[in-house]
């Protein structure tokens, strides 16, 4: 048993040999935040009185969903054999959409705790991050969490972990983040087995940005890992990718509240505040150096955040459009990966075409817009980036089906991913069926432990963003987990399917799909709309078309009767109020040509509510 450290080491003057930088790799609900909480408590940086569940997860959404969207670093003192050490725990985001951010967090560490739920075993996401950690040459400490649970099967999963990373099952540490059992041993092991950081204290300063967050009061807070040299307060610094310069207004460490220091030296992890208001000026992966004595070579691994998934976001109440713009402008300050531009839609009015890192990113942004800014939003079906070459050799980048060029198309290429799906072996058949239906090709499969299988598929990203994960979850009772990474592009027989109401295309429903699926999509949407659009005074054909060719057709027969039979003395007030209400309702109708469509119909058609209702 280690006692709490009696005295903390001072930042800027800590011997790198006494520093340990590590992160925790874990699946969403495997208890990472709870374990982190226990470490904060046991090392004494958070008093028992101030402790609140999931201390590090700052956003409401994070705390509610039990996931970490943004990372943070905490410096904790720990003593082993009479020597005090400084432990920097870097909390990594836990989802596939944030792989790049994860990779930067990993690059800031020398070791990683691989934390696995003793009742569930490892998940696909965790495996993917584990590979990333091994790629970064991190020392891995395998740990089973939640061993206090009755359903825990530590022997089985210890063997599984040992099989994955080598070593012996007995060496897998067993802890409970909830009760604190085993956590002190874990901290000892961090000190004992994770290497100390190395760097050149005399070289020009180089610090890697592994996170950058916007704080409404302080502006952007940039989290860095010092590699070489030293950074001090009031110093002029430079971002190596943009050459932009800023003055360091504050520098310090989190423990876990921001604590200003005299600087940061080799191997240390801390934060910088320069007064900039936009995270784009302080991007994850970039290298910070000093203006006076700049480094010549940037740290490797920097890449621009690249949106993969696009969707139109529209306020349900059109008058909220300026509020949506303002909200996006604010979110952009804290999210360098969010991109957007104004877009108009016949069906949905004014909105924004937004680019996201992935589906969860889309979901989180939408939820934050709704929750933090009180907006009611509708999102169009997610789309990916297509490269379309026309017959006259023009190349068009399409992130929105409405940009799909008309006329002859020479080729269309779509982004591909390598998808890894981890699931109990009983579900292999149903997963294969699903993946084949989504144009996936099997790249191999392997057992993880004795009863779980990891399947590798090459698949178009476009197939994954379109409700693939929902289907995967429902086919496997929620047991399957999914990870994917881009692996380039492929040329495919893709077409744009338009949905026409009385001959007018409804932009929000156009989709780029594989030719073989065009008919199914056409039938699905025309049937859906037929159920949702009220009858008009004339017949309304609903068609699905590829170019000028109609591939599916439904029609809404004309409304023949719209009259109240009786209107006598006592009915007049009631009738007038009904009419006034109908006229009010008519104002909220969207016009597609002459067809009046209630906005709710578009929303329901986009969200697929009709089928869900049928199932009930």
């Amino acid at each position, binding site marked *: 048993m280690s006692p709490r450290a009696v005295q903390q080491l001072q930042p800027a003057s800590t011997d790198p040999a006494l520093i340990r930088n590590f992160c925790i790799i874990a699946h969403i609900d495997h208890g990472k935040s709870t374990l982190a909480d226990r470490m904060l408590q046991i090392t004494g940086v958070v008093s028992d009185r101030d402790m609140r569940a999931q201390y590090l997860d700052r956003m409401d959404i994070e705390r509610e969903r039990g996931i970490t969207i943004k990372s943070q670093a905490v410096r904790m003192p720990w003593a082993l054999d009479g020597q005090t050490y400084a432990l920097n725990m870097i909390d990594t985001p836990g989802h596939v959409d944030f792989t790049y951010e994860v990779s930067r967090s990993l690059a800031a560490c020398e070791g990683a705790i691989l934390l696995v739920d003793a009742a569930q075993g490892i998940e696909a996401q965790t495996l993917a991050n584990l590979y990333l950690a091994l790629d970064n040459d991190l020392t891995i400490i395998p740990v089973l969490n939640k061993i206090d649970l009755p359903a825990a099967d530590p022997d089985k999963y210890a063997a599984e972990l040992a099989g994955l990373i080598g070593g012996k099952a007995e060496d897998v540490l067993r802890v409970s983040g909830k009760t604190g059992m085993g956590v002190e041993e874990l901290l000892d092991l961090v000190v004992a087995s994770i290497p100390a950081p190395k760097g050149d204290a005399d070289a020009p300063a180089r610090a890697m940005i592994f996170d950058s967050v916007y704080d409404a009061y302080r502006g952007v807070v940039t989290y860095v890992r010092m590699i070489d040299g030293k950074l001090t307060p009031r110093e002029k610094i430079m971002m190596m990718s943009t050459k932009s310069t800023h003055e360091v207004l504050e520098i310090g460490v989190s423990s876990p509240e921001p604590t200003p220091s005299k600087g940061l030296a080799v191997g240390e992890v801390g934060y910088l505040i320069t007064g900039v208001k936009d995270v784009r000026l302080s991007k994850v992966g970039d290298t910070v150096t000093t203006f006076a004595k700049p480094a010549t070579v940037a740290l490797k691994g920097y890449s621009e955040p690249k949106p993969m998934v696009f969707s139109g976001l529209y306020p349900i109440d059109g008058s909220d459009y300026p509020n949506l713009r303002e909200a996006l402008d604010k979110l952009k300050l804290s999210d360098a990966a969010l991109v957007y531009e104004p877009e108009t839609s016949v069906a949905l009015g004014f909105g924004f075409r937004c680019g996201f890192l992935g589906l969860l990113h889309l979901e989180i942004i939408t939820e934050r817009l709704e929750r933090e800014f009180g907006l009611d939003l509708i999102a169009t079906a997610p789309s990916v980036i297509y490269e379309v070459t026309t017959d006259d050799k023009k190349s068009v980048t399409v992130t929105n089906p409405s940009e799909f060029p008309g006329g002859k198309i020479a080729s269309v290429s779509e982004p591909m991913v390598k998808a890894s799906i981890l699931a109990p072996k009983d579900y292999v058949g149903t997963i294969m069926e699903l993946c084949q239906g989504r144009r996936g090709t099997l790249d191999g499969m392997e057992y993880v432990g004795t009863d779980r299988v990891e399947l590798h598929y090459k698949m178009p990203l476009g197939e994954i963003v379109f409700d693939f994960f929902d289907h995967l979850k429902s086919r496997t009772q929620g047991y399957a987990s999914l990870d994917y990474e881009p692996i380039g592009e492929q040329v495919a027989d893709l077409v744009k399917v338009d949905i026409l109401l009385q001959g007018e295309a409804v932009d929000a429903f156009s989709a780029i799909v594989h030719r073989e699926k065009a008919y199914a999509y056409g039938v699905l949407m025309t049937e859906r709309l037929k159920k949702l659009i009220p009858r008009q*005074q004339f017949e309304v054909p609903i068609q699905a078309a590829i170019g000028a060719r109609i591939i599916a057709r439904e029609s809404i*027969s004309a*409304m*023949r*009767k*719209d*009259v*109240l*039979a*009786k*209107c*006598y*003395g*006592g009915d*007049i*007030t*009631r*009738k*007038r*109020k009904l*009419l*006034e209400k*109908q*006229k009010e309702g*008519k104002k909220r109708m969207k016009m597609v040509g002459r067809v009046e469509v209630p906005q709710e119909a578009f929303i329901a058609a986009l969200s697929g509510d009709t089928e869900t209702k049928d199932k009930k």
Partner: protein
Amino acid sequence: MGSALPLGDPAPADGRLPEGTSELSHGHPFGVYVHVPFCRVRCGYCDFNTYTSSELRGAKQVDYSGQAILEVEFAARVLAESQIAPRPVSTVFFGGGTPTLLPTHQLIEMLRAVDDAWGLATGVEVTTEANPDSVDARYLADLAAAGFTRVSFGMQSAVPHVLQTLDRTHDPERVPQVVGWARDAGLQVSLDLIYGTPGETLDDWSRSVDSALAMAPDHLSAYALIVEQGTKLARQIRSGVYPEPDDDLEADMYELVDARLDAAGYEWYEVSNWSRASVAADSGAAPGSSAGPRPDALTGPATPATEFRSRHNLAYWQGHDWWGIGPGAHSHIGGTRWWNVKHPAAYADRILAGVSPAAGRETPGADSREIERVLLLARIRSGLTIDSLAPEARREVAGLIADELINAKAAFAGSIELTLRGRLLADAVVRRLT
């Protein structure tokens, strides 16, 4: 019981009408509606304000005419105190409920009270609703002798299974008989039909229309069944006993009745009402009519003619003045509408205490009044003149012609006349004109 009253402003206990009512009332004919809130049984589709004996909580049918007469006297005082110029009564209408559940002397006493209060105009139209099984020859003759001119029978259907679904208790065979008695008594006869009853086929409906025509009524109303919230029928549809009404079938039924009636020489004059063409006085009265010269309700006192349309109902649609007597009755005088408390016991309490029985009232502003004017007159054949419309509404006229919702010839002549298609889509037309 029945549909809820509208939400409105509180009504003053003395019934006094707002300032300005007198001007808005000026020049309009005046009618009286008398509600009789009793039925032997409640029909499953009905949401009217009516009560069977078990629901009356101490209010008694025998006391009813006395209470109604007190309201007539109260009305005369309120109108005089509100400086409304006195006018003789153009039309009186006894509705329900089932007015003919009361003995004739009660109905006659109430009519006398109306006469005593304001006087009956020359050629006054006095109508009562009747169930075919609640009257006989003597009953009808007594009414006619006392000045009643018109009886409206709730025939609804000639098909037994349809009547049964509607909870109507009369024997369809009895209808021609009571129509004959009414005619013998010199009363004009109107028949009410309902279409769209769950389970009713187009054939059933055709039979009912033919049966009605065989009786050669002077007037006919055909209403699509409205499933009102809170009725037994609404519950039966919700629980799946009966299917939802089918608008397309109802449209077919409307087209059928309109074609049959047109072929038989009837004219539509409101979307749900048809009458025999009016006859000039000197060309001889129609069979069964107690014809006398009557002012034309649409154009005021002009050519004396036998009028077969319901002038009382036309008065509602033309925004004339009427006072509704009885529980739940609605009134309209010079732009103010009000409605009485619904339960007969509550009504009796108020009336006997000399307090206005109004539960609430409203005086719609100019915009709402214009909406009411358009929505009511558009339903009447050439009831709405294009000149009277606001400029934006006038701009819709060409589109309505193009969509075959209104008659082009009538429009060129200056009035809105719905086509057959337009009558079926009248609410949509009204939305475009308001």
